[in-house]
């Protein structure tokens, strides 16, 4: 069984998923950062593949993307860095990124590499469901990769059901209509949306992302789903390359304290 699926069986609540950008803040940080995230107690790690023109990302992650690219990060290099991932990392790892660098790498080659290094799932926000089902699903299945879909407050009930039907692992609930990095906390509208989705009794676990930034918001979100994802707030905490690993650990511990 895929590590992701196993995770939610073992721990159906308060799952903490940490996002960071590969090659950030320094090129050499990718694997040590995953290690630190695991060691600090997070349940799941989402490694961003940097892209020059990320549309769903807010300013913090955009800047991390640019820094990582300036550092020399690429898909090719990422797989080299993750070669020995599974020697020390046992939590699920998913890759997240724009579809274009994946295209250029070659889809099948990409999947193969993912399997080789031990990736469990993919979040490709601009891979639409229709294209996924038609051209990607078989490949992903063949290489044991779960495709994670997003839903937003504007996603219709019908489409949520469709997404649930086509999902494995978990569903990524975008907390509000926004790019990453907004910091409004859990508003009444979000609550309404979380409860609405809750009431749908989906077959997949759900993690809430966008706007989760600390212990308080993590716990709030966890009330309505199986856990939450922290991205921008984490990136902000690890800006300094000299102290990034310690800062990562501190940050995660403060969320889980």
């Amino acid at each position, binding site marked *: 069984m895929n590590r992701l699926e196993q995770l939610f069986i073992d721990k159906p609540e308060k799952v903490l998923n940490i996002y960071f950008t590969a090659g950030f803040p320094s090129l050499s940080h990718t694997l040590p950062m995953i290690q630190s995230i695991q060691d600090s107690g997070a349940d799941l790690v989402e490694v961003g593949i940097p*892209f*020059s*023109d*990320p*549309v*769903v990302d*807010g300013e913090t992650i*955009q800047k991390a993307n*640019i820094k990582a*690219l300036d550092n020399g990060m*690429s*898909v*090719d290099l990422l797989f080299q860095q993750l070669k020995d991932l599974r020697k020390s990392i046992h939590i699920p790892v998913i890759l997240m990124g*724009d*579809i*274009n*660098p*994946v*295209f*250029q*790498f070659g889809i099948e080659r990409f999947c193969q590499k993912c399997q080789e290094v031990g990736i469990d799932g993919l979040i490709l*926000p*601009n*891979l*639409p469901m*229709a*294209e996924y089902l038609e051209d990607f699903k078989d490949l992903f299945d063949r290489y044991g990769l779960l495709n994670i*879909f*997003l*839903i*937003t407050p*504007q*996603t*219709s009930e019908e*489409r949520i059901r469709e997404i649930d039907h086509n999902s494995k692992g978990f569903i990524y609930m*975008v907390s509000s*209509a*926004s*790019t990453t990095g*907004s910091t409004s906390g859990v508003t009444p509208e979000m609550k309404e949306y979380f409860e609405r989705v809750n009431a749908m009794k989906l077959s997949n676990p759900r993690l809430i992302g966008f706007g989760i930034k600390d212990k308080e918001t993590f716990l709030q979100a966890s009330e309505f789903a199986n856990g939450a994802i922290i991205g921008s707030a984490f990136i902000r905490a690890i800006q300094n390359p000299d102290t990034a690993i310690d800062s990562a650990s501190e940050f995660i511990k403060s969320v889980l304290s």
Partner: protein
Amino acid sequence: MLQIENSAFAVDERGYYGDFGGAWIPEMLYPNVEELRQNYLQIIYSPEFQEEFNQLLTDYVGRPTPLYYANRLSNEYKTNIYLKREDLCHTGAHKVNNTIGQILLAKRLGKNKIVAETGAGQHGVATATVCALMGIECIVYMGEVDIERQAPNVARMKMLGATVMPAKSGSRTLKDATNEAMRHWINNPVDTHYIIGSVVGPHPYPDMVARFQSVISEEIRKQLFEKTGSENPDHLIACVGGGSNAAGTYFHYLDELSVNIVAAEAAGHGVKTDKSAATTFLGKEGVLHGSKSLLMQTIDGQVIEPHSISAGLDYPGIGPMHAHLWKTGRAKFYAISDDEAMQAGMKLSKLEGIIPAIESSHALAALDYLKAGSDETVVISLSGRGDKDLSTYMKYL
């Protein structure tokens, strides 16, 4: 607006032109784009929409724009050159054909806010214009570099009551303005419509924009017939940034295989330099801004920052329809350098008393490669006027 069906070059059911197109969008945009997809054809071909659209094109935009026989230019090139005068449209470029269409659509979809990106500022002005006309709030994203080099258009947008937001990331040009506009739409999905300015973006944008712009070729057919007895020119030239004026110019000619379709891309300093925007020469298949098309990118799939002296062509991709025309060989692409374009623009000014937008100057420069015969007919899309480009032209004078 005439509908065409069963064209070999039209978009298919799935939103593709051959291998290119689709709607490669994040889930956040799905409801908006899907709403558009399901409704656009029905709305825009409704008699009531058509009436309002056509009336505004006539009384407000000033259509039909003339098809002008350029006598002195024809003598210079020893052929017969007609200019389709989109420069005479209200606001100074073809862009307004599309924004009129989209604002009417947005109203019918119940949207009361508009966001747009702009490069040369022509689309921004055209959007700000229709928003003023309808009393709708308008935000336009524009790259910081373009804000600088197209200052008059920034002033115009402000006069029209629009908010101009600087895009400060990347090359700070059109691509980055588009990123920002998309992000804005993601952040404001409910009452905002995104008026894309070219035949780019997720399906149905490329098709929708092409249909609004197809009034250009519809008019050319009629006007050329009146002037020459034939609807079809031998050559049809347009510049391609995203490709909306080209799409409009080609639209009703795509299946007329006797018509040589020519696209002028911006070579910048040259296709062999790292300062270029000639997508078909330098690009590979890729996904940007919601559609699969040709894209200038590194081996790692990172988007390359393009360069063109013309802000409106300074974009690393082209619309999927044009990628398809290129791949099928239906259109012939020329890469026109900054210098070639500037010379062509100055030539038209001096010979015909028409100062073209630098974008359009790229189309004019293609005449040097075309070698059209003395008994042949060439129609060139003069997509816009050069008022916005005077400071750039002055440097070349």
